């Protein structure tokens, strides 16, 4: 009995530590208070500011577009790379795998800084072209796509591919119709991972972004140093919106996973 109470206390304690700050901020985002702790009336003005201030809207849209663009490129490159490496000779494959591991274990500060040195300082590419920023984010994300596709290739039944060739399919057709569908779950989770990595990035963006462009992370970090109260509290609203989006996404995913499980059990 006592043991059970302890177990519940641990779980509840950690959940409070993880969620209480976000929850309290969410509650205060619906008031016109400038600081946590002040008791003020209900207000939606933070949400109005968030969605009507051009600077804030541009920053949110920019972050989303960057995440989407970089993730699409990273997914294509990483998937093709994984297929290529999987069918290459051991030596070539291990070179690719080793290079792939570098951005994974490396600190993002070092990744961002080194890409900035090469592209901006040595090659003289202007940051305003967005090339360093996109290249940086693709470098950050593609290795994780690669890593989530490789296990699916290993699980794949290779005899189906050979059967397709025997039945007259060209290697290209067999790849598109046999291999890709089998590794699709890996591609999808790699893409989702790429999106979250790009959305959460601060370091690569700081070292490679144009001066006039901001992602959510770089904007928030600069805004907390400034003293503009209405911007500060509008970011509470942004935090709440993202929190709700993540909760909604998780609920949908969990329900769908549960349904699939049931169907599989039923069949």
């Amino acid at each position, binding site marked *: 009995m006592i043991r059970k109470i302890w*177990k519940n206390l641990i779980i509840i304690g950690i959940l409070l530590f993880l969620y209480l700050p976000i929850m309290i901020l969410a509650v205060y985002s619906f008031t016109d208070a400038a600081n946590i702790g002040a008791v003020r009336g209900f207000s939606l003005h933070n949400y109005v500011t968030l969605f009507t201030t051009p600077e804030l809207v541009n920053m949110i849209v920019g972050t989303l577009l960057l995440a989407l663009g970089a993730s699409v490129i990273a997914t294509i490159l990483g998937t093709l*790379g994984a297929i290529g490496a999987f069918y290459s000779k051991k030596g070539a494959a291990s070179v690719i795998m080793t290079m792939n591991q570098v951005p994974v274990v490396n600190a993002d500060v*070092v990744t961002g800084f080194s890409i900035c040195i090469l592209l901006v300082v040595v090659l003289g590419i202007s940051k305003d072209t967005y090339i360093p920023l996109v290249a940086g984010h693709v470098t950050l994300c593609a290795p994780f796509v690669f890593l989530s596709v490789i296990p699916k290739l290993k699980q794949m039944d290779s005899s189906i591919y050979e059967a397709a060739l025997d039945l007259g399919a060209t290697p290209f057709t067999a790849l598109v119709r046999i291999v890709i569908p089998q590794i699709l779950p890996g591609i999808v989770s790699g893409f989702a991972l790429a999106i979250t990595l790009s959305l959460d990035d601060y370091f690569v963006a700081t070292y490679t972004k144009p001066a006039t462009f901001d992602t959510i992370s770089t904007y928030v970090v600069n805004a907390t140093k400034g003293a503009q109260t209405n911007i500060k509290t509008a970011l509470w609203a942004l935090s709440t919106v993202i929190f709700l989006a993540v909760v909604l996404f998780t609920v949908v995913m969990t329900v769908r996973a549960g349904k699939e499980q049931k169907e599989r059990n039923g069949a």
Partner: protein
Amino acid sequence: MHKYRFSRKSLGVPYALFLLIFVAAPLFVLIYYAFTNGRGQFTLQNLTGFFSDPNTLGTLFYSFGIAFATTVVCLLLAYPTAYVLAASRLRAKSVLIMIFIMPMWINFSLRITALKEILTWLEGSLAYHPFLNTVLGMSYDFLPFMILPIYTTISKLDGALLEAAKDLGAGDAQAFLRVTLPLSLPGVISGVSMVFLPAMTNYVVLDMLYNSTYIMGSLIGSYFSAYNWHGGSMIALILLGIICLFTLLTGGMEEENTRGGALL
């Protein structure tokens, strides 16, 4: 006419080129810059400068201090949590795990903002406890990365081993100390490397919580702001060396990459 023959191997060529240009080449440029001065001459000054300046050495030790404290706090919080989660027979366990992972998907700067507002309210001013606040902030940020690998290894443990230990007369405590704990070490090591290294470099948490001291990551930031590419490259290289050393020490035991595995 030369007929193009499609091969699956050739699909890897674009990615291999990409890795050469954006992963390998930047590293070589980094090494070149770290060992040259502004006029392009070879020099060891960036290296000796780092290890003879009390300020930069102090930063190195302070980074280790912050990272060590953060790792200990995360471990103390994460191990019991992962253990309880793995041992629970709840049917909704997978949902519970999702709830522990979910914070990783909320932008970290916004989460630190939330923590900062709460700490300001509780402490009056963040200036009173900069070290404590930083360790709290980093633990808040990195805790899920410690819970997940430990949870994964404990839940994969063979329950028969525990039963065998009990049949042979071990008490609960003894069974935990001599079966569960040693077998969960790979998860602990993987979690430690997921927390320790970012804690040495994520200077944004430090900045946002108004801790005016420096960690290794902040040094790169300050050289970057001063356009000192040579000094910055040396710091990046030293940091890379620490990362390599740490990865070699903990490698082999790491089963899967959790930053990636978290989503599946």
